[in-house]
């Protein structure tokens, strides 16, 4: 079992009138090598779900085991290590550092990982090549289109070769063609053995996954495997 959450709650303004239960007692198990889409309307708690699963946020209640490790017991430093080595993030808004060029953005997680200065540029270039952005290595985010920025963000996510990729509406800000291209990259990663968590509100995009978990009002309302025909 790679990811194992049990009875997870994320509650904002608990006890007040404005209380919001972004996650309301969620339990979910994901195995290594799965391609899971977490689907829900806006406000259903799917982004909160990814933030908690990605160790970007802490749940109010509940347990989270990642590869058997109790995430709730980890220190800040250990969490940073997990974000760096175990999980690669792809955000809807790309979240690239504007002042750094593509190569530097991709190199950043390698620096934090402590990869030697001699290797990391090669590794970063390799990652850029995988998303077809190696020819734009020295462009700043502001000099690239949304699709290109997202591909750089993907390159950054995969540079450390993490076993899990979490993508939050990765195609949300892209046109359908570049969106398809991004999904193609995710599929390739899946084929390579990476566990993929895809968060989306779009059923069409969710249909690319092998398993669809549907969220509504912070609760899982359905969890179905699906056969997909990838041509």
């Amino acid at each position, binding site marked *: 079992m790679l990811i194992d959450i049990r009875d997870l709650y994320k509650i904002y303004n608990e006890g007040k009138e404005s209380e919001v239960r972004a996650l309301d007692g969620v339990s979910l198990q994901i195995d290594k090598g799965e391609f899971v889409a977490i689907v829900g309307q806006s406000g259903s708690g799917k982004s909160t779900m990814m933030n908690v699963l990605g160790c970007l946020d802490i749940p109010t209640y509940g347990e989270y085991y990642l590869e058997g490790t109790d995430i709730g017991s980890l220190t800040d*430093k250990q969490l940073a*290590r997990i*974000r760096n080595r175990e999980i690669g993030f792809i955000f809807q808004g790309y*979240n690239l550092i504007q002042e750094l060029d593509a190569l530097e953005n991709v190199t950043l997680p390698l620096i*934090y990982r402590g990869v030697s200065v001699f290797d990391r540029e090669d590794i970063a270039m390799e990652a850029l090549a995988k998303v077809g952005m190696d020819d734009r290595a020295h462009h700043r985010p502001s000099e690239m289109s949304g699709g290109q920025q997202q591909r750089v963000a993907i390159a950054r996510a995969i540079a450390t070769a993490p076993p899990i990729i979490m993508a939050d509406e990765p195609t949300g800000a892209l046109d359908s063609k570049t969106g398809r291209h991004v999904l193609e990259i995710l599929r390739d990663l899946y084929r390579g053995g990476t566990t993929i968590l895809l968060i989306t509100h779009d059923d069409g995009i969710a249909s690319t996954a092998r398993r669809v978990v549907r969220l509504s009002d912070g609760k899982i309302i359905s969890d179905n495997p699906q056969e997909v025909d990838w041509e």
Partner: protein
Amino acid sequence: MNLWQAFKMAFKSIALKKTRSFLTMLGIIIGVASVVIMVSVMQGQAKKNMEYFTKMGDNKIEVYAYSYYDTENETGQKLFDYCLSLSDLIVGITPDVEISQKGSIQYGSKTIPVNDWEAFETMVSVGGGMMVSSGNAWETMLSFKLGSEQYGVCNNYTLGGGREFTYLEVEKTIPVCVLGSGAKEQLFGFTDPVGETVNINGEPFQVVGWYESMNIEYWPQKDNIVVLPYTFNRSMNRNNPIEQYVIKAKDGHATIEASTKLEAFLLGLFPLNADGWCETGSFRVGSDQSYMENAEKANLMQSLVMGAIAGISLLVGGIGIMNIMLVTVTERTREIGIRKAIGAERSSIISQFLIEAAVICSIGGLMGIGIGYVGTMIAGKLMADVFEGVILMPEPTIAIGAFLFSVVLGIIFGMYPAIKASGLQPVVALRAD
């Protein structure tokens, strides 16, 4: 992530965010530079003030004593004798009389009027070759002084060559003289006057020595003197009573003690009657010690005022640093969120920001010191008239102090966003915009 990496990242960030880096530096540059300049100017002025007093002669007691019934200068003799008894406090005593009659001094082809303003005017209007020096009369007019063999010591002159009078020369009214540097220059130029004979009011006098220039601004008269033994008072000064004396004490403490004793002594010579009036003469004892104390007080006041102004400018600079650092908190918070999301530890984020702030502030501080030094030089040049002779030089401790203050301030406020944002959950930091 190692330290070198943190340094590289910090430098990169500074280079990439030029405007913000520059604005941050600007506060420090202005703060440090203004402190350095202001304190330097202030210290220069204080130095100048004190220099004036030192040259004028510290430990100097000026005595004025006039007796209504004294024709043979008995008062002077008594004062001399009394000073001899105070030899543990007093180094020397001399009459200090300026001859009020017009006169002249001649050497070779040069004849120079002394204390003779009309003759000077004529000379200037003639424009003749007899003129020895340019400038106005006020700056060049010579005067005859009557003094003892201790005239130079008492008035803080330094011999440039030759010697003072001897006791015997004074006693026996031997025609010798010592020239102030102004008189020496006007008569002899750069040649050595010692041993030469000059004619004073037609009488030959031998030059036995000359004094170095006092270099007191606004007071060139101090150098434009010709000192004669005071025993010439009878023949050259219509035997006017000698009323002015200068007494040189050993040190500041001796000055105060000797002044007190001299006052008591003179009060004995000139007793007051029942109405508080003195019927036999008058006297006054003054020392530069009191002037110096006042000057020191004035300097201290000025230092405090300037220090306050400098402190305020440093504070304003500091607020500038603070503002620019705080304004960028949101921008930086998001960046910190991204860095955390891709696996940066809190410590590496804090060290990056710490180094960044330290580097910016250090560069700014160094530039501030540099500009402060240059500014001090410029201020020194602009105010050369005021500070003549005093070279303005920034005090290193002040420069370092201002530098450290700005750097510490910059680091504190530079780290503030890092400390604050790196403690947030990444998702909270990411949400900032």
